[in-house]
């Protein structure tokens, strides 16, 4: 292996002049690339631990959305009869699967910094690696969960169309949105441990404000305006469009959600980057 040419690392007092956004962005991407091996090691560690510590291993990643699918199917077919374009069980599973990816990332990521305080106070690395690695761990569960969706599509005879090829695009948008939220929450929890408790409430509220178990566009009145602002709904609907309905996602709403995700990720990442130098002192 060639010895990398010595690079100079500077650690200087923060100047009063605001640092250039361009320089920040360059540094963020450069550092993430330089420390990607560490990020993958942390992902590997978490996956390995789950496999070792639990008997069911990745079975758990399927069990959770399947349980919810059964519960909501009972409610919305036996108690209330909800009309959906595809049979309700597959409708709700296709919503629960990506939602679970989002929600479980938030749950783990909120403590991503605080639970790794030994690392943060002893070793230098870009701290965003910690919340980012929780996304990658949850992504593995998410992908495993698709196996059940595939079986259900076979059972309910839902044909797969070419639009399914858009899946990576939808996943990418969801990851960007999740990453943006995750950076803010993990950083917030480092300063104020209250955030961890707020996240639980936030997740529950957010789920019913998203088209996970029922289409929120059936909600009318003033609440409908608020619900329209939620980028998670077009993202989850996009999964149903391309996988179950065999059509392109609703472009205006999905396009907006994608744009919001990109902006949110960049803004929160820059904020995170500008604050992370003092994490070791504040944790």
């Amino acid at each position: 292996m060639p010895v990398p040419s010595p690079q100079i690392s500077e650690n200087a007092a923060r100047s009063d002049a605001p640092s250039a956004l361009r320089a920040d962005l360059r540094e963020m991407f450069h550092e993430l690339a330089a420390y990607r091996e560490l990020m993958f090691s942390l992902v590997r560690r978490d996956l390995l631990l789950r496999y070792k510590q639990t008997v069911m291993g990745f079975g758990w990643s399927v069990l959770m959305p399947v349980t919810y699918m059964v519960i909501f199917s009972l409610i919305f077919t036996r108690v209330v009869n909800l009309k959906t374009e595809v049979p309700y069980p597959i409708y709700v599973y296709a919503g629960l699967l990506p939602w679970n990816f989002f929600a479980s990332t938030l749950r783990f990521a909120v403590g991503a910094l605080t639970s790794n305080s030994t690392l943060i106070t002893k070793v230098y690395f870009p701290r965003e690696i910690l919340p980012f690695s929780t996304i990658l761990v949850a992504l593995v569960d998410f992908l495993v969960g698709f196996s059940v969706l595939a079986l259900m599509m076979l059972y309910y005879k839902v044909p797969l169309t070419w639009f399914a090829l858009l899946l990576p695009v939808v996943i990418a948008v969801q990851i960007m949105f999740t990453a943006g939220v995750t950076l803010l929450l993990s950083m917030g929890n480092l300063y104020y441990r209250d955030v961890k408790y707020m996240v639980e409430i936030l997740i529950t509220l957010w789920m019913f404000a998203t088209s996970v178990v029922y289409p929120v566009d059936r909600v009318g009145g003033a609440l409908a305006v608020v619900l329209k602002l939620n980028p998670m709904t077009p993202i989850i609907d996009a999964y149903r469009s391309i996988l179950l309905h065999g059509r392109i996602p609703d472009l205006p709403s999905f396009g907006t959600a994608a744009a919001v995700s990109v902006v949110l990720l960049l803004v929160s990442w820059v904020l995170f980057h500008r604050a992370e130098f003092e994490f070791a002192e504040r944790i």
Partner: protein
Amino acid sequence: MKDGLVQFEGVWKKYRRGERHDSLRDLIPSMARALLRKRVAGEALQGQEFWALQDLDFTVEPGEALGIIGPNGAGKSTILKILTRLIRPTRGRSLVRGRIGSLIEIGGSLHPDLTGRENVYLQGSIMGMPRAEVTRKFDEIVEFAGLSDFIDTPVKRFSSGMNARLGFSVAAHLETDVLIIDEVLAVGDSAFQRKAFDRMQTMVQRGIPAVTVSHQLERIASLCTRAILLVQGQVAHAGSTTDCIEMYARYQADPGEAPVAGAQAVQLDSIALASADSTASGERIEFEIVGSSPLERTGARGVVGVRVRSLETGSIIYACGTETHDLEIPPGRFGLRVGLEMNVPPGLYAIESSVWQGGHERDSRNGPTTLIRVSGGPSFTGTVQMNSSILVRSRA
């Protein structure tokens, strides 16, 4: 690989005492305060704040090893944290050229449920070692830690010593341009400590610039080419390792200003070895203490004492004085020629002088100190030479 460099340029670091607000409950009052009060421009000290480091400058070039010594809370670890970019200086900057290898105590970051092997890879990547490099050095690392038989056992079954050894071994195999050592010299049993120390010494001898923080002055003395004595965030002395250690030994014996017992007190001016500043174990050394005592005799004349301190353990291993020899200090200038038989194992020792005015410990003042290195001699271990004799006989 001889181009590593460490540079500190006018570094200041501010800390604050007491607790910061940590829950949202405190956020609102503090935000209100921030709005009402004008932000004080960065650098002035406010309320609970204090300077942990003040105007620190140093450069460590290839071939040099800098030792930082000083009492607890002097700011030693803060220096290392700034070097490794864990915290940012309040003023000034630090520059490090090349890859930094930190030999810090990170045994705590090993994961108990992962095996030794998995932890080696994890630690490697935490310290910035590419996976391929870990694979290449894997056997060497495990061999060094002496854990070949346990490498596929979960770390939770390891003893704490094994844990620390594994963590150290990974760090010690990092290909590095700059070495940072934080009090890890106390890892594992004495055999491993020896091995770890030798490893660090080899790295320093290869020309890798190093910065070391330790309370084990003996180790600092043999590892470092020069030193800084840090007291309350300020450089009390910078220069040769032995000078700094000498000053530190004196500081430890007598922090703060010594109580001056008036004009009648005995003053000690100097202490000087009559011969070279190193000797062999079991040899006799002589040194001279020069001082003065008041001409008119009023009350107790005072006693001059001599203490020998082991710099490895920091404890006093021998003490004597004019009173234990039934001697009186003459009025005016005087010299005391003291002889000691160094029946001690090889190492670095401080010879400290002191004056006792009354009968109490609190009435004592410390005089000058000198260092003596004891090397070689008849082989033994322990703290004192007992001139053992062993006779071997066959018994049918």
